[in-house]
């Protein structure tokens, strides 16, 4: 007996629907079971990175919970909102950790995490992500070389504007011969981030929680 095509497709759709429901239920269950653990791991991962750029023991607050959103800003180079974290000791602001993007790396964007102390001094810079040539431009990674530490303690007052360049361009900062584009981009981005923090001290080093 030939089956009515309408009935046949209805039956097939119902079977398909059954699988979709079971699949979705399984996924929802797993999501629910792992959700807390995942957000905790992600928080730990962020904190571990932040801890690298801040001097140990400088703050006593949970930075993840003192985060502010930074709207796209030309000085920070971010095209989408990023998060900045404020470190406090006994409620008093001591440092701010912000993200900056160097748009002009050798192959695309270089994302940086920069910690700036209350007195305008850099406490540390780390590369979050980049696409620079492995073995050539990737010495900006802390895992590959200590280069990124040349920014430690630099500030707008200790390094004049004209010196915020690599040595090849007449500035103060070292670089590795053969890979100048990468450090040039990083130096520029760090300089601009410092300018940003200088202009936005009220926001980054706010005394009380301004939500």
């Amino acid at each position: 007996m030939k089956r009515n095509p309408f009935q046949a497709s209805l039956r097939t759709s119902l079977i398909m629907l059954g699988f979709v429901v079971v699949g979705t239920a399984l996924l929802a269950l797993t999501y629910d079971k792992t959700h807390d653990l995942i957000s905790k791991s992600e928080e730990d991962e962020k904190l571990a990175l932040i801890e690298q750029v801040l001097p140990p023991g400088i703050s006593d607050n949970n930075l993840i919970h003192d985060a502010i959103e930074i709207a796209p800003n030309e000085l920070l180079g971010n095209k989408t909102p990023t998060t900045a974290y404020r470190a406090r000791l006994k409620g008093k602001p001591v440092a701010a950790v912000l993200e900056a993007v160097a748009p002009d790396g050798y192959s695309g964007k270089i994302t940086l995490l920069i910690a700036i102390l209350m007195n305008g001094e850099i406490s540390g810079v780390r590369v979050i992500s980049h696409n620079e040539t492995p073995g050539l431009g990737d010495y900006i990674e802390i895992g590959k070389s200590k280069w990124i530490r040349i920014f430690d303690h630099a500030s707008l007052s200790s390094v004049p504007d004209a010196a915020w360049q690599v040595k090849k361009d007449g500035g103060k900062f070292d670089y590795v011969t053969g890979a100048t584009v990468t450090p040039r981009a990083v130096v520029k981005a760090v300089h601009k981030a410092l300018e940003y923090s200088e202009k936005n001290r009220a926001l980054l080093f706010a005394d009380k929680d301004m939500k």
Partner: protein
Amino acid sequence: MNETSYREIAGNGLWKQNSGVVQLLGMCPVLAVSSSIVNGFSLGIATMIVMALSNGAVSLIRNLVPGEIRIPVFILIIASLVTIIQLTMKAYLHPLYLVLGIFVPLIVTNCIVLARTEVFASKQKTLPSIFDGLMMGFGLALVLATLGAMRELFGKGTLLSGIDLVFGESAKSFVITVIPNYQGFLLAILPPGAFIGLGLLIALKNHLDSRAQSRATAAEHMLQST
């Protein structure tokens, strides 16, 4: 299709029909993640788990699914399983997940997974299907680990680097530095290293096979002439 014996399934998965060096399905992870033993083997094992479970599930429901929606249902099953593995990995093996990154969800698009559900599991009983998934996946994991070992050794002069991502900080001492003060050989780590390495592995397998075959024919000749 007749029922296949377990011995045959294992032989196919691990050697004769190896997904990494014979069927050449699922090249995306093979080439991208095989930069070290730990990365390669971990993704291989994740793929193996997905394959065993998806083969098992497909085989269980093989008589319930009308032919015309077979492929969508299989893909739904595979995608659900991969998402479950991805979430579990993200929760319990977070550092490793960060390294393997996009390649974990990409297991969904690994041709070998769908190929085995379609070719094998949709026609066979559940237990042999699970076994087939295990063997095919393990075959892939072995290729990934071998290729990873080759590239890591030539590229960085170490073996098992990054094992702390799986077993925690204390496992750092497992890392074997084979060549101390090695400057590194970038080509092996970069994508060309994966292609060259895979080519060498395929050549090696073909060489072993043809040697075994010529021995077999030689033995036959001997038998006939006596």
